[in-house]
């Protein structure tokens, strides 16, 4: 509360009457509740779900890294070979390209993992975005 002495000395107090508060118009609460009803049934629910997004992303990233480190080297090589042959096999409606020269460049193995990882995470991120956008 304001200090009583200051209260008396303040000349503006002569004009301002705190009890002359503007009252909210009739039906105010029901209007707010209607607006809430229109868009909030999923608000609290979806906010709960949306809060999970970073955890899901972190979990998937950890799994991906774990997979990269735990899968035996030979199997991974098989996997990357399969992936390369799949990429080379894409020749529908796009001009045939000679990809072999590109993939013959000797790269450290980690780049292949990183490339695949980014690709998987991007697809996963788009899927999550699509799912939670729908929820919203």
């Amino acid at each position, binding site marked *: 509360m*304001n200090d009583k002495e200051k209260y008396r000395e303040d000349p503006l107090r002569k*004009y*301002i009457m705190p009890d002359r508060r*503007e009252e*909210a118009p009739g039906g105010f609460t029901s209007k*707010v509740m209607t607006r*809430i009803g229109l868009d*909030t049934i999923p608000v*609290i629910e979806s*906010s709960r779900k949306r809060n999970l997004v970073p955890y899901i992303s972190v979990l998937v990233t950890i799994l991906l890294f774990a997979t990269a480190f735990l899968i035996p080297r030979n199997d991974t090589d098989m996997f990357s070979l399969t992936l390369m042959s799949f990429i080379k096999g894409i020749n529908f409606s796009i001009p045939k390209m000679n990809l072999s020269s590109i993939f013959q460049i000797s790269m450290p193995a980690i780049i292949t993992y990183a490339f695949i990882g980014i690709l998987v995470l991007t697809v996963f991120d788009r899927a999550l975005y699509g799912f939670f956008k729908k929820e919203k």
Partner: protein
Amino acid sequence: MDYKGDIYYIEQILAGNNNSFSYIVDRHKSKAYNLAFRICGNHEEAEELAQDSFLKAYRSLRTFKMKSSFATWLYRIVYNTSISHVRIKRKGVLSLEDFPADATDFIGTNTTEEEAEQEYRNSLVNFALQKINEEERGLISLYYYEEMTTDEISEVTGITKSNIKVKLFRARQKMLEIIEKVEKKKLIYHE
């Protein structure tokens, strides 16, 4: 009457009982509406702003820290919503001629002279409020109508306590100047 605090209803809402929000709206609607009205100076806009503020409060109820007062938190939302709205939609400057000459203009069919005088003073304050900037309007409203301390105002507005004192002093001076001018005009009118 069974009185329950805001925290009780907030916990109910967070548990999924959306209807509990109506108790919160009922309890704080006039304070929210009054603050919005003092800042924007228009009843229709004030209603819209107060409703928007409640909606914002509902949507971000999870971010509300139960340790602080819900009213202060809500005031902050209303204050920021109203200030941003007024900044976007700046109106033309009111002239002294826009204000009615004296209390007799406020006498209706069922009003006494005393009520008309109160109505006159209230309108005079609203008029003076519209002549100062939106931030000052908010501070005046919180200090005089809601009778908040500078500490509480600082919590709502995010302005430092010393800065609030300076701004309140300036706003008070400006308003008194405007009121004086109107009162002088009233005297000239009666001569």
